[in-house]
């Protein structure tokens, strides 16, 4: 069943600035959708429009079939977790969680029951009488989630909830959020700028760029078949090698001296891409091209090699190669590589669309 529908939803500010031209998205019940993009891409604005904290300029938002554009945030049956948690500092953890229920006139004993259930689920039982300032970052994060869960809303909205935590806690909370969402089966819309967070959490990802949905799909769809160079560069770490090239009868012409053979109908300027992990080490006879090594980053489990494609005219394209295990090639030496055709990504340079 479709739970949340955004139909040509757009946002134009009173000063004429168009933050979001038009976004279409339909979310299934229980689905975990992540909105991801660089800062200023409009992802938070979109989330706040769903929450009712920003007005919707054009288009329509429907939750369970009901038009929500004119509804107050409280009437939309949503719960939101804010980046800074937005816990009420003068209230205890219990009161923070009970506030929304009290406002809805729910009986006191029922509130107690619900709060203690959620507190148990999140391991907050011991902390119910504490004030937010007496909690650690991770605990505050849990309270913020508890406050959202206790109301049992139709939709959870998360606005970069993990960005204030340290790296270790972030990974831990990421796993916890995913498990909780699975268990509760609540439709979730989650905003982040971190592509790892996005890939690991999402059932489906929405990559936003300048207020437009560049691509919507499962994390693997986006990884395997990015629709645009923007998505290709954004998903995956280190990001995909993208090189301006020309498609000719002979194949992909990267420079005067280097053409990778390919038979393709399309002609003209393209962007040729290959992920760092898909390049393979080769030798002079079998290699497609050579890389002049500029830097080596050894991470133990993998090694990242940065270099430039070796050409006569000294200004070759930069490339990153990701090899598993430790490697220690000399800086400034040449490394021959093959680029398997099955891992190529071709984009039209003009339309920025996948070929």
């Amino acid at each position, binding site marked *: 069943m479709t739970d949340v529908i955004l139909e040509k939803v757009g946002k134009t500010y009173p000063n004429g600035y168009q933050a979001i031209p038009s976004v279409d998205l339909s979310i299934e019940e229980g689905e975990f959708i992540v909105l991801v993009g660089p800062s200023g891409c409009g992802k938070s604005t979109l989330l706040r429009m769903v*929450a*009712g*904290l920003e007005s919707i300029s054009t288009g329509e938002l429907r939750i369970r079939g009901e038009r929500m554009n004119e509804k*107050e*945030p*409280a009437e939309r049956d*949503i*719960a*939101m977790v*804010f*980046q*800074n948690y*937005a816990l*009420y*500092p*003068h209230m205890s953890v219990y009161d923070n969680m009970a*506030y*929304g229920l009290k*406002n*809805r006139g729910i009986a006191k004993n029922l509130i107690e029951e619900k709060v203690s259930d959620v507190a148990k689920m999140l391991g907050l039982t011991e902390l119910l009488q504490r004030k*937010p*300032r007496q909690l650690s970052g991770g605990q505050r994060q849990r309270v913020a989630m508890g*406050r959202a869960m206790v*109301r049992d809303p139709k939709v959870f909205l998360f606005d970069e909830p993990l960005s204030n935590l340290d790296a270790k806690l972030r990974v831990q909370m990421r796993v916890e959020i995913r498990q909780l969402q699975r268990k509760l089966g609540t439709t979730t819309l989650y905003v982040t700028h971190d592509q790892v967070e996005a890939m690991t959490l999402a059932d489906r990802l929405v990559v936003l760029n300048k207020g437009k949905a560049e691509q919507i799909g499962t994390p693997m769809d986006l990884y395997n078949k990015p629709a645009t160079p923007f998505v290709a560069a954004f998903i995956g770490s280190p990001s995909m090698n993208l090189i301006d090239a020309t498609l000719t009868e002979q194949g992909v012409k990267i420079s005067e001296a280097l053409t990778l053979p390919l038979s393709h109908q399309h002609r003209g300027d393209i962007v040729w891409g290959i992920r760092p992990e898909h390049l393979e080490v080769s030798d002079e006879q079998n290699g497609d091209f050579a890389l002049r090594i500029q830097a080596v980053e050894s991470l133990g489990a993998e090694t990242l090699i940065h270099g430039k494609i070796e050409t006569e005219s000294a200004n070759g394209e930069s490339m990153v190669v990701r090899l598993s295990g430790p490697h220690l090639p000399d800086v400034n030496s040449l490394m021959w590589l093959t680029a398997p055709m099955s891992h190529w990504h071709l984009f039209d340079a003009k339309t920025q669309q996948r070929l």
Partner: protein
Amino acid sequence: MTVTFPQKGLPWLLLLPQLLVTAIFFLWPAEQALEQAFYQEDAFGLSREFIGLENFIDLFTDPLYYQSMLTTLVFSFSVAIVGMSLALFLAVMADRVIRGKLAYQTLLIWPYAVAPVLAGVLWWILFDPSMGPIALWLKSAGVDWNHYLDGNQAMILVVIASTWKQISYNFLFFLAGLQAVPRSLIEAAAIDGASPFKRFWTIVFPLLSPTTFFLLVVNLVYAFFETFGVIDATTKGGPGQSTTTLVYKVFDDGFVGLDLGGSAAQSVVLMAIVGLMTVIQFRFIERKVQYS
């Protein structure tokens, strides 16, 4: 950070002007008052006699003194509560204004720059029973306004005049306090189903409590000690004793009634009250509620 001066004399030299002002205008008169409180002096200041605690005994057996104390309490709490409520209301309104925000804020700060006596005179003219526009309007509305005869009306007048001056100060602090409340808290409360009214009383107002408490102390101190000019310009403590606050009584008894010893004893009591309020202010405001 500690700054070290090469010579020991320079820091004292830099402090000297402030120390001089404090010594001449605060410490010396305070010492004089303390001394005078134990003497009885003739009206011309030619001779005096040590009488021990008699001035204090007279003071605390005088029903008029208690009357004045009550007047001061009524006056001070009225000024503090009326002034703070209005200022909070204005601050909430100003916080919501989007267009012309600065103009509203500037206009609301102006009264603070008006000298107390001028403020007193202004309200005195507005409420003058025979020609004041507000008094005439009240009369046409059926209220028989004459603060020269009616003690309660005189009290209302001094409360209005004193409050008006203090609203700007309260407004500034409340506005700053309101702007320091994170927007996301209000938004979270909105999602939690709280009406705007409820959001204000359950989220914003409690978060303003450090500001509110600070302003309460400041307003009480203001009403106690800094409203002499306003009272002198509007009612001169009258009619009868109805607007004679403790500070006004010091002046009235000392410089009008020429009971210098009794007046000095009253100032000593006031000094003790100031000291107490300062202690309260520091004890509680330093320890004000911390929100992270």
